[in-house]
Structure formats: C-alpha cells, structure tokens
C-alpha cells in the first residue's frame, strides 16, 4: 500500500470518529510524576538537540527498520504528506538521544528491558512551527509476538504552555506540569504534536518491553518519584 497511515488504520481498533469519546482510546493514562529540578539539564538538552524531519528522524537507529537513519517506510510516510499538500521536509521536532544523567535516571526508573530492539530513550524538543503530523506508532517492532508487553512512556519536562499541542485520538493533553508521566495505547491510537507557543515543548520518550518492575509501577495509581 502506498499510504503509511491507511495501512496502519487497518490494524487499529480505534473508532476514527471525530465526535465520539471512548475512554479506552481518547485519553492518556496518567502514571505518576517525577519530583526534582532538571531545569539546567533541560536548558543544555534544548541547546544541543538536533532538528529532524520525517526522513531524518532516526539518525542513531541501526536497526533493520532504518536505512542510514531513514525509516524503511519513508516512501509511504512522505506519500501521506504529499497527498495532503504538506511539505515532506517540514521539521517535525528536535531530538537528543544522548541523555544527560538526570534524564537517564528517569528512563531507568521504568525498568524496561530490550526486546528485538534496544530500549529507546530520547528527549523531544519541539520548537515553534514544528509539526509532527497524525500517525500511529510502529512500536510492535520491539516484540512482535507479544505487543501487549511493549510500553511507551512520556515524561513532561516542563509545564504546559498555551500553544503546546498533543492530541491522542480526540483528546488534547494540556495543563500538565513538569515531571508528569503518561502512557497510552500506542498500537491503536492516532496522535500528533505541534508547537505554536512561545517556548519549546520538551518531553522524554522511553520505549521498551515491560519487566515485572514496570508492571508493578503501572499497577500503582499515582507514583511519586524523587529525582
């Protein structure tokens, strides 16, 4: 199939009804929050993060799913952008894969383990004007025979500001505070992000396979973790 999105929609159980709210999908699951001060480290990370497009978003990924840092699905992904009249070279986000110790410590808290791919931890810094268009994740690549064991966590690294857009299904995540942790149904829920605000929108994204410790953490309703 030519279209990445059309292909992924077929496997999704999401309702794709703009006017329906299904709590199973149109939401982000709140996991808890980190407490601490990482403002200096974040400042450094924002400075050194690198701008990427859909084509260049996996610079350090040496898996079979990339070819010299470009997704093997790039033709289908760029087809979607072309079809909608967008610019395939539009910057989607800035990334930093070299986590500073405090962010690595956050990532380690989830006790994820590698599957067919290594644990992926990176900081997303989205600047004004950057847009990551609507998509469904292909995270099944971590453990294709047990997709329920794969988790993706978001750690918000600064307070929400107006103009910071994160949409999951029909739900807009807003009003969050620095340190809050979320996860979501990555297999089914289409999502997108953009920044039309005045300051950067930064979050840590960690993906991997759940261990028993991960599941224990998820079983608690409101984790508070001091960093």
């Amino acid at each position, binding site marked *: 199939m030519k279209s990445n999105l059309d292909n992924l929609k077929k496997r999704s159980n999401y309702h794709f009804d703009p006017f329906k709210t299904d709590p199973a999908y149109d939401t982000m699951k709140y996991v808890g929050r980190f407490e601490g001060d990482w403002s200096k480290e974040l400042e450094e990370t924002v400075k050194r993060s690198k701008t990427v497009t859909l084509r260049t978003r996996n610079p350090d990924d040496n898996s079979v799913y990339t070819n010299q840092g470009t997704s093997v699905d790039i033709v289908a992904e760029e087809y979607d*952008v072309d079809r909608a009249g967008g610019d395939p070279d539009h910057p989607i986000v800035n990334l930093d894969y070299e986590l500073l110790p405090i962010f690595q410590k956050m990532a380690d808290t989830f006790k994820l383990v590698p599957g067919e791919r290594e644990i992926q931890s990176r900081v997303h810094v989205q600047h004004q004007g950057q847009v990551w268009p609507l998509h469904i994740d292909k995270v099944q690549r971590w453990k294709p025979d047990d997709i329920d064991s794969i988790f993706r966590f978001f750690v918000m690294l600064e307070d929400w500001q*107006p103009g910071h857009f994160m949409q999951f299904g029909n739900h807009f995540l*807003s009003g969050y505070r620095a340190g809050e942790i979320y996860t979501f149904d990555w297999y089914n829920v289409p999502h997108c992000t953009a920044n*039309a*605000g005045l300051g950067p929108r930064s979050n840590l994204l960690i993906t991997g396979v759940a261990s028993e410790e991960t599941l224990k953490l998820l079983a608690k309703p409101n984790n508070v973790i001091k960093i």
Partner: protein
Amino acid sequence: MDNQQEWGESRWDFTKEKSNWHFDPTIVSTDYTSICTFNGEWEQEVAELISTKVVPSTWATRNKLDIPGKLYSASKEEYDLTRAGANPDMEIFNRAVAHEYAPFKAIADYFGMEEATIKFHNQTTGQQLVWHIDNFAGRKERGNSFVEIDADKNPEQMRRFAIMLDDWKHGQVFQLGNSNWHQWKKGQCITWEWQDVPHATCNMGWNDRPMLQVTGLTTSRTRELVKSGSFSNVVDIGEH
C-alpha cells in the same frame, strides 16, 4: 505624529501589554464565545476557492490581497518568530478574499457589521498560525501603518468572527486562551475579545481545514448577537 503606536521590537510584547487576559496557563477558562451555527451548502464554493483562488501565506505576506507592499508589522512579527526559534517564512494558511460568494456574503451580512471583510482560509497539513493577539493589521483603518485607530481605544467597535466550513477532523486545533476548541461542526461560528485573547491554529492532520473569517465595524445588532450567542442558534443560509 502623536497617534503612532510604539511597538518596540516585538509585536507579541506590544499586544500582550495591551491585553487584559490573565496569561495563567493553570486557570481553566473559556476564552471564546460561541455565536451560532450557520446551516447551508457551500461545498462547491469551498472547492473552487481551494482549487483556484487561495494563495499560501506567511506572516509577512498574509495581507498581500489588501496591501501590495511590505506589511508595516512584518519585521516585528518576524522578530517574534525568530526569537521563538521558528522559521519566519513558515506558511500559516492559504488565503483568498471571499466577498463574491453568495453564501459567504450572506453569512457576513448576518452580523450586521459595516465595512466587513470576508476572508477564506484553508489550513493544510503542517501549516501553523502561531500564538498571537489580533491587531487587524490588514484593515484599511490602519493604512499599513502603526497609527492608533479608534478601535484600539474602544475594542468593542470592531469584531472578528470565525466560521468553520467543514466538520472538525483529527489533528486540527484552534486554541483561544486556555480553551482548546475542537470537534466543531460545519457552520459553527465563534468570536473572541480580539485585543485580549491570544490564540493559535495548526493543522497536524491530513485533511483541509476551511474557515471563513469576517471582520468589521460593529453595530448594535452585532453586539446583541454576541450577547445572545450560542451554537444552538441555527441560522439558515438560503439557496443562492
């Protein structure tokens, strides 16, 4: 001249100073006013505008339809974009004038405004109108200059309405103050306090987002419509 506004380097800083909004992202507030829902058929007009009339706009070129030369506010707006790390030449929407289209003229007439301008916007994938406060830079009262107009002193004299021309689709966003307006239905119309409420729009989705923007000088009718506004007010736009 006495009546020239002193913006300094930044449009945002100047307009923020004039605003009475709270600028506190933790407050849960509704920062727009629903006016009505227009009921009518305009798919053909939208298709024609998208296929033959609209032109892509940046901040600097968004009022080319009215002002052929350099827009007086452009350098202050580009300063804000650069300061925030954005590309000053980013596309914000595709735009066309829409006075000649009967359903859109009928919509504009409903507001009872004088000297109304009718603009058609289509925002496509990746386009974004960043966080800003209105100042109606393209209006003829401004004369493409920093002149202070009567509406700056009495903002009730002017008003802008936005009318969505199609149902909301995933990935489309219109944020006004701390309110995130989405899941709109075709024909729904809102307004906001233009001198106070910052707002932004973006299309992260894969479908066109056509919208009508009507701006003009208010009359008592306009003010009454705002006072009694609700999406449950259905306004039929007849055959044209």
